[in-house]
């Protein structure tokens, strides 16, 4: 495995590569087809380069462990807004997730519904393209429209357009208090309606999930203590028509609950493949019925996690729908047979291929990861 210690070394490695490269951060998000190629780990590019709590900005090298970033932020009472999922729980992987991996996979969590995805907090980055050229885009300030936004293009490109060397984020204050409202026994349709009512209220709900098997619909609020108490009360009133609303206010309990939701712990260690289906929230009940297996709703219904029998081609089963399905966990044979990412409309697939040809003309960066 190649382990450059600096961006310059990374650039030399790519420039001098004679065959495909498998780009690695912490190696905890082994999603998609196994890439054949020499492993390049960015774990050696490590450390927080700049952190200004008063400006809500942090810049770190791509190989910095996520845990290190979170600890640095927590010490100042701040956090990453988008609540990145820890894939180790669901995938059974080991190792330390890196901040570069979070960006490459655009990893977010339940708070995505209010605070946006990783790409929404990302304000700048540096990367090495397929030629070995070092490129920067964005910067360290949160308002920046200077030139094209390649920051967004790189987020979620899974190392296929370039290898990230440094990333910069806008961060937010961590809240003083949190509460979770729980309603039991709702049908999928009623649950989605209840979540829509809550998300359409001014009470700043930043988590909305529904667990059909546990029979629970969960809503989270965060903020100053008096504010959380007030909003919990208002929401309970608003949601009274849907059933009895229980309010959990113990901070540790609320945090543990949403961490498990974020990490899809309910499907961890269970037999079956796991899919992530992104749709319009109100389509969720009908989609869940079409999926048939065990499901969990996040993002108010906009995201369905599905546990289906091993080898199921869920996409083929669902037929045409508005949104996309991603295969997150399956054995090697299934992953070799079923495309990980939703195939795109031909015109968009052509643009994606042309972009890859521009940024990685030799096709050496994680070849096939996003296309097969």
């Amino acid at each position, binding site marked *: 495995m190649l382990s450059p210690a600096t961006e310059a070394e990374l650039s030399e490695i790519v420039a001098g590569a004679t065959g495909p490269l498998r780009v690695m951060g912490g190696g905890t998000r082994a999603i998609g087809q196994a890439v054949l190629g020499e492993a390049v780990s960015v774990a050696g590019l490590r450390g927080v380069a700049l952190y200004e709590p008063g*400006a809500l900005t942090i810049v770190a090298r791509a190989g910095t462990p996520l845990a290190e970033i979170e600890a640095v932020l927590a010490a100042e009472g701040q956090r990453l807004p988008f609540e990145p999922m820890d894939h180790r729980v669901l995938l059974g992987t080991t190792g330390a997730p890196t901040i570069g991996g979070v960006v490459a996979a655009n990893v977010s969590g339940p708070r995505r519904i209010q605070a946006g995805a990783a790409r929404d907090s990302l304000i700048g980055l540096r990367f090495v393209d397929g030629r070995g050229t070092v490129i920067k885009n964005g910067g360290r300030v949160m*308002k920046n429209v200077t030139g094209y936004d390649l920051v967004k293009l790189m987020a979620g490109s899974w190392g296929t357009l370039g290898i990230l060397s440094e990333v910069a984020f806008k961060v937010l204050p961590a*809240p003083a208090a949190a509460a979770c409202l729980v309603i039991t026994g709702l049908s999928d349709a009623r649950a989605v309606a209840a979540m829509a009512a809550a998300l359409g209220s001014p009470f700043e709900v930043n988590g909305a999930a529904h667990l059909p098997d546990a029979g629970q619909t969960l809503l989270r609020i965060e903020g100053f203590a008096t504010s959380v108490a007030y909003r919990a009360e208002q929401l309970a009133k608003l949601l009274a028509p849907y059933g009895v609303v229980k309010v959990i206010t113990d901070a540790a309990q609320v945090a543990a609950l949403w961490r498990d939701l974020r990490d899809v712990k309910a499907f961890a260690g269970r037999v079956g493949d796991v899919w992530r289906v992104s749709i319009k929230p109100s389509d969720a009940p009908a989609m869940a019925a079409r999926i048939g297996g065990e499901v969990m709703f996040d993002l108010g219904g906009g995201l369905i996690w599905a546990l289906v029998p091993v080898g199921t081609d869920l996409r083929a089963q669902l037929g045409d729908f508005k949104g996309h399905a991603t295969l997150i966990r399956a054995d090697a044979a299934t992953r070799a047979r079923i495309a990980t990412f939703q195939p795109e409309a031909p015109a968009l697939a052509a643009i994606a291929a042309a972009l890859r040809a521009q940024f990685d003309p030799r096709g050496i960066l994680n070849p096939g990861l996003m296309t097969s």
Partner: protein
Amino acid sequence: MDMPSPDTRILSRKSRIVERLAAALPKAAVIHDDAEVRAYECDALTAYRCPPLAVVLPSSTQEVAIALQICHAEGVPVVPRGSGTSLAGGALPTADSVILGVSRMNRVLETDYDNRFIRVQTGRTNLSVTGAVEQDDFFYAPDPSSQLACAIAGNIAMNSGGAHCLKYGVTTNNLLGVTMVTMAGEILEIGGAHMDAGGYDLLGVICGSEGQLGVVTEATLRILPKPEGARPVLMGFDANEVAGACVSDIIKAGVLPVAIEFMDRPCIEATEAFAKAGYPMCEALLIVEVEGSPAEIDEQLALIKQIAQTHNPVALREAQSEDEAKRIWLGRKSAFGAMGQINDYMCLDGTIPVSSLPYVLRRIGEMSKEYGLGVANVFHAGDGNMHPLILFDANKPGDLELCEAFGADILKLCVEVGGCLTGEHGVGIEKRDLMSVQFAPEDLEAQMRVKDVFDPDWLLNPAKVFPLATSQSRRQRDFAA
């Protein structure tokens, strides 16, 4: 600011090009009369003007596609246009270009409160998007000061921001999907009502691409429930440094105001004379606004005022009524108008790390003396997006050039301290030739490669964003008509 000289081969084919457009589109959609096209000769960067070859005002995505196919086949550059309020010259035509304006496409196509989105044609103005949903207590968050006039089309192209983006983000954070027509006339659907479009984040790169990748005709926008209420507090300080430190302390304390606006003495004096908002005369003034229920607002403002007290404010005034809140905002909102009353001005838009605020303001003050031109500063302090207004006299020979040189120096300063050339107005022609201050050649090359993918012939808004010398070989690729 130079523009490339028009392609005489295109100018000589004007009648044929206009005939083809007129034959394929409704009669009222094509404007080519010399007097009528003059209405499209500039945007809000009025120092630069040039009437286009012709103007096309389609009524549907289909018509946009037809117009683009013809222009593509004829090798004619196309400049997309929304409402023409760009301050960067983004919608400035060249004599050999066709203006493609979406102003007639202003319908709401779908409103969905359960899924919290609205789908509109992009000619719709920013304010009227909120207008379509506010009776049901929803709003569209990005709120540029030009929101009465500017169109969603331009907002997407420039990734526009507003006073409330500290909390709600800018256009790109509130955009879910677009319908876009490529220069070749192909209609693309990207994203939609579901979150997270699959594949590469094309939506992210289209937003802020200044009309160079395609013509956006429809947009799916996130709408949000209106907060229960909002209230501003006004505070005055006797030094810029102190106001800057106060902003930083508020943010560090864990409060996230929806807006933190900053005005310096020259700006306070001008707006006070013009709008009589009752501002205290001091070196620096902050307007901090928070949202929530009355009790939530009380709690946040109490904390903010407590922090402000530690910085010895010369004034500290919380709005006690709706009326007082309006008066606090009145001065800020009329700042540009006030400056316009006393002078011609150029509005800059660089962003700096908030920590550099005192240094940058001091340097701007020094440069102002060196150049002999006044500057007033008004800006979004929470996110470091500055709007220095340089005052000059358009009738005085040489003053515009002097002002531009001063502006360039301020923007270079922004980059030097770790910031950028433009926080929300875009590059256009205005900052085009300064791009190499912020970016290395390979950074610009990477961006231009994206344009190569969407518009290989460089026909869409070609002379913008990239330094002319840098984009020259791409723009001058010989195009067989």
